[in-house]
């Protein structure tokens, strides 16, 4: 065998472990999922599952709770991305200037991210307790009456959005920080001499330079947002009135609590398609942004 052929085989060998893992933990389970989605698979009676055609799909697409969960997650995504990115960028800008105590701020802004999401959720439940929680106490100080927060279908999702942004912003702050420090200082000096004030420098230099970083963070935030489950599960169990039900939580509940694995599989296939749709949109936005560069 010649050199080239040998290199090819060795190349395959290097890739093999990763391929096997991909196959075992991603591709095969996915195929199994699609398979199960056409059956009435109940977790306790695996041997009794029967083919039921598109029944699960029809049931899912006509399930008001599932539809609501899709609307909920859309609402979440639409708000979390600008809020969390805005917070992250803001924090990065603050921490970027040489200030005494900078290290302290960097650590405290990042700290929420190292706490497990479950612990964060539990802690925040104390803070947002409508009767005794810290948040309503503070609002009271500025003469705002206590808010129902998590007990209100209208407010619950926004409370979760706020908490999620608080938790995630620190990590992205670090990424933005790296992006900011990559911007050559001389660009700002040139702009200063051209007569630009701080806001103009931010708009014309900082923001365009951060575009690739921003795109990347938007992608990772979007993926994490679409997977929202922990906060809903711990803080509200999807309520009140399914106002905070998320697709992933609903799939989990249907599959593992209600034991309806067939139905849950259909839901996950449908949601998988939704995610692909989001990805395509996001790619288009990124592509257009890249062209402008």
């Amino acid at each position, binding site marked *: *065998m010649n050199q080239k*052929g*040998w290199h090819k*085989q060795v190349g*395959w*060998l290097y890739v*093999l472990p990763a391929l*096997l893992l991909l196959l075992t933990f991603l591709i095969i389970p996915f195929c199994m999922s699609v398979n199960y989605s056409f059956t009435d698979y*109940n*977790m*306790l*009676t*695996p041997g009794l599952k029967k083919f039921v055609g598109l029944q699960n799909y029809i049931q899912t697409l006509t399930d008001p709770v599932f539809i609501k969960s899709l609307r909920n997650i859309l609402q979440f995504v639409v708000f979390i991305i600008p809020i969390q990115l805005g917070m992250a960028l803001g924090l990065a800008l603050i921490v970027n200037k040489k200030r005494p105590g900078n290290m302290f701020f960097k650590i405290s802004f990042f700290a929420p991210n190292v706490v497990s999401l479950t612990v964060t959720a539990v802690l925040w439940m*104390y803070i947002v*307790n*409508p*009767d*005794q929680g810290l948040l309503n106490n503070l609002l009271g100080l500025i003469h705002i009456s206590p808010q129902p927060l*998590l*007990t*209100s279908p209208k407010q619950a999702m926004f409370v979760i959005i706020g908490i999620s942004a608080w938790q995630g912003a620190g990590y992205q702050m670090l990424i933005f920080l790296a992006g900011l420090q990559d911007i050559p200082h001389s660009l700002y000096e040139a702009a200063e001499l051209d007569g630009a004030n701080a806001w103009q420098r931010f708009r014309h230099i900082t923001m365009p330079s951060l575009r690739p970083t921003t795109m990347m963070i938007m992608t990772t935030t979007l993926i994490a947002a679409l997977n929202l489950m922990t906060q809903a599960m711990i803080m509200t*169990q999807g*309520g*009140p*009135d399914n106002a905070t039900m998320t697709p992933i939580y609903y799939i989990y509940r249907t599959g593992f*609590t*209600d*034991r309806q694995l067939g139905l849950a599989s259909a839901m996950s296939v449908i949601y998988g398609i939704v995610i692909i749709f989001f990805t395509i949109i996001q790619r288009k936005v990124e592509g257009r942004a890249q062209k402008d560069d």
Partner: protein
Amino acid sequence: MKHWKIGVMTVAALAGLSLTACSNGSKNADSKDITMWVHFSNTDPEGKALAKNIKDFNKSNKHGYHATVKYIPRSGSGGGYEDKLNAAVNSGSLPDVLTLDGPNTAAYANAKIIQPVGQYITKKDDILPTIKAQGTYKGKLYAVGYSESSIGFYYNKKMFKAAGISDSELPTLSKPWTWDQFNAICKKLHDKYKTPILNMSLNDHSEMSLYSLAPFIWSAGGDITNKAGTKAVGYFNSKETASAVKFIQDLVKNKYTTVSPKDKGFETGKYAMLMTGTWEVQTLKTQYKNLDWGVLPYPVSPKTKKLVSPTGSWQYAMSSQAKNKKAAGALVNYLAGTKASYRTDMANTVLPARKSTSKLMLKQADEATKFFIKQNQQSGHARPVIVNYPQITRTFAETLQDATYKPNTDVQSLLNKQAKVMQKYLDQKN
């Protein structure tokens, strides 16, 4: 040179196969070995008690049976343990004997994960009727509970006195408060303290909801489903059920209780009353020694005056894959028997599941526990035995949540809607 690829893949496949092949050891109908899985750790008081029980069983049984236990501590409410059971169902590696939470009886029986064990249980009359009801599905006894549970209304003696409530106004097991009397007491407390004075865990939408609030419905003469567990319409939305839900809703409306209680509010002297389970006794005795407290029974429907309290806890069951049924059944019978379950109940400070163990425990129990044992045996009502129990309990919790979060909701129309939802779950074929 494709040999390379094929070779490696074959090796990998073989390795995978061999792993699955070496799962269980040999199991035949004459084997004296009994395997058992439990949902707690061997360092828990419950685990330590079980270890002693197993030792005694192995020593004392006349057939030479030998039991070994695998401890699989659960996370959350059943979490890791149930996952393991489910996985074992699929791979055919269930143990001979397992522990099982009350509400899962119907589902596991229906799915043939467990098999009837009644023929191996002796002294059935000694077992409390609520325990037997909990473990019975389609007329057969599938599981035997080894401990009971209850809910009581803990009250802060000092706060009551300060609100002007005399001892004569307090309820007893023979003369519990009616709902009207209960409202009057709450009003007195609310007038004094101006804030919600009762923690009913209305923010807990887990099993606690049905477990702790269904007794109100039962007291009023309503129900969640019919006895067979096949119909919810006509039962969950009956007038009687509605009256009970309205009673709870009014407690929120009048601000006697709250949908978002402060954690440990009762223990720290904020709420005058706390509706919760027997486990609270230990908490109060060890962590809040300065609190002067007592326990009161459930309030009852003014129409029926019937005292109803919740029941149910974990059970022992024999798996459908147990080859030596006699051995497995003997273990279940032993562990659920007087000596063994008494040891377990004492270690875990839970209520007894048998009349004989009750007698023993009443002798040495403290006031609160004595109260609970009595309330439990006098008024205990088992939860419905339904295959789709998770969906039913969740619908119940959502209903109560809807009724209490928006206290102006019309209860009857809400129940009409939710009964239909429940019916759909009951109609599901599994």
